[in-house]
């Protein structure tokens, strides 16, 4: 029997207070009427109004969204391919280098990734802008996608795909009709991870973005460098809200899906037994 003591309860309470209080305070102060961020002067939504009137923020948000959608989509395709290569392809020339290049970006400090990509773009004379940020984000997030997808592929029963091939499927159809639906949850979470990483990235984007394209994190960083700003509080509240709704919805959906799968399996067991 598990013993849930007072000590456990206290450490959980304090721990979650530590994790959540800073964000809750940020949300509360985003509704503060005073420009002085530390003095409470009554409820107001004026900072949200100012935020939505600020063209620079809206432009940056639009660039960030474009970069995140494009880079995470390409990264999901490339990362899934890389995962299949890693798990299925057996030996081939340069395999060690390949898996090294998949795992290295995960531990590479962002400042080095950013620096090296910038030097490449300057070296080949590519103008810095949305394209270069997309290339940079795709490269590091495809590695995360491939780790997520390959962990799912490892546990996948390959005989299912072989059965499809025996029954006359082309290799591509066998992948599309059998493998892809089974690894789909991992592919989707890989995409979400890539999307979040791209939305979140400041360092690599700062190196690879030119004057023509500013992303939201770059804009946030330059405005908070000198101190707290009420507009950024409002923006943070919106971002925290979106993430909270997204994560909670995703977990409810996956909970329901696993419940249904359980029921299906039980029904199947009854039918065959």
């Amino acid at each position, binding site marked *: 029997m598990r013993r849930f003591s007072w000590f456990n309860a206290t450490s959980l309470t304090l721990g979650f207070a530590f994790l959540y209080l800073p964000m809750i*305070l940020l949300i509360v102060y985003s509704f503060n009427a005073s420009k002085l961020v530390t003095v409470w002067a009554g409820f107001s939504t004026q900072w949200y109004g100012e935020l939505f009137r600020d063209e620079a923020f809206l432009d940056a948000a639009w660039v960030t969204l474009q970069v995140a959608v494009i880079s995470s989509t390409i990264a999901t395709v490339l990362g899934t391919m890389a995962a299949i290569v890693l798990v299925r392809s057996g030996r*081939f020339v340069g395999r060690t280098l390949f898996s090294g290049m998949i795992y290295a970006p995960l531990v590479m400090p962002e400042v080095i990734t950013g*620096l*090296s*990509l910038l030097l490449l773009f300057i070296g080949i004379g590519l103008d810095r802008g949305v394209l270069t940020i997309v290339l940079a984000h*795709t490269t590091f997030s495809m590695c995360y996608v491939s780790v997520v997808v390959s962990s799912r592929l490892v546990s996948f029963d390959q005989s299912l795909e072989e059965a499809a091939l025996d029954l006359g499927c082309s290799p*591509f159809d066998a992948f599309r009709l059998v493998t892809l639906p089974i690894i789909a949850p991992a592919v989707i979470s890989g995409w979400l991870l890539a999307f979040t990483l791209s939305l979140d990235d400041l360092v690599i984007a700062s190196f690879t973005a030119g004057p023509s394209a500013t992303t939201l994190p770059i804009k*946030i960083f330059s405005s908070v460098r000198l101190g707290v700003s009420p507009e950024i509080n409002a923006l943070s509240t919106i971002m*925290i809200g979106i993430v909270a709704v997204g994560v909670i919805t995703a977990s409810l959906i996956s909970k329901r899906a696993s419940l249904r799968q359980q029921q299906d399996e039980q029904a199947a067991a009854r039918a065959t037994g």
Partner: protein
Amino acid sequence: MRRLLIAIPYLWLLALFLVPFLIVLKISLSDVVLAIPPYAPTLDLSEGWAGIKAFFAALDFENYWFLTSDDLYWKAYLSSLQIALISTAITLLVGYPIAYGMARAPQEWQATLLLLVILPFWTSFLIRVYSWMGILSTEGILNQVLLFIGIIDEPLTLLNTNTAVYIGIVYTYLPFMILPIYAALEKMDDSLLEAAEDLGCSRIGAFWLVTVPLSRSGIVAGCFLVFIPAIGEFVIPSLLGGSRTLMIGKVLWEEFFNNRDWPVASAVAIILLLILIIPIILFQRNQQKQREVEG
């Protein structure tokens, strides 16, 4: 078909990961000049063999020597290591009781608690660091509360100090520490603890002799997951740290953007990687051992 499958991601990574890295290596061996781009390449492939010979003849580790001659750099490396090490230790002290509490919580809470730990991970890193600026500043909420309670008489200077950097690292990397420890503790068989107590162990003795060794793999994984990224951290020292906070990620950034000294910035990057290789290899070994035990 199979060839294409291998070739596409392979070429992508070669072009956008390996080649850029080799460029950094090359530039770290170049000379600084006042031009755009601000370095003189020492390796000129267009001259063929003669160019390569000239490259090796002229090869000097001038920028690396420069790094050893100026105090700033090795102090920054040492202080990054120190800050990463201390904050990893604090994160472990803070994270272990939370992971332990989660593992012992009633079964029906566990999914929710896990979700609560993962949620901050999906929230913007930058925003989570920023949230502490309002708390730690001189007129900040923490100082107001402490003054109100009467613990202090005048506000503490917290923001723009190393203390703020420690708080920032512990706060942002805490989920990375909690998750692997929780994963290890959750698998633990409670009857082992009962056995230890039946055999005369005190509760605390059983904790040290049974629980901690069984969660060792989680502790090691969590520590590396905090330590490795903390060394190269840029956002936390530049928002929460002060002018005296030396961290190598920040030095690299300033060398590149403010001083425009690309060769030295590249040399800083190469040495940072050399420092990181040891913990990364140790981490890989730990993970592999873990897989063998489980597999």
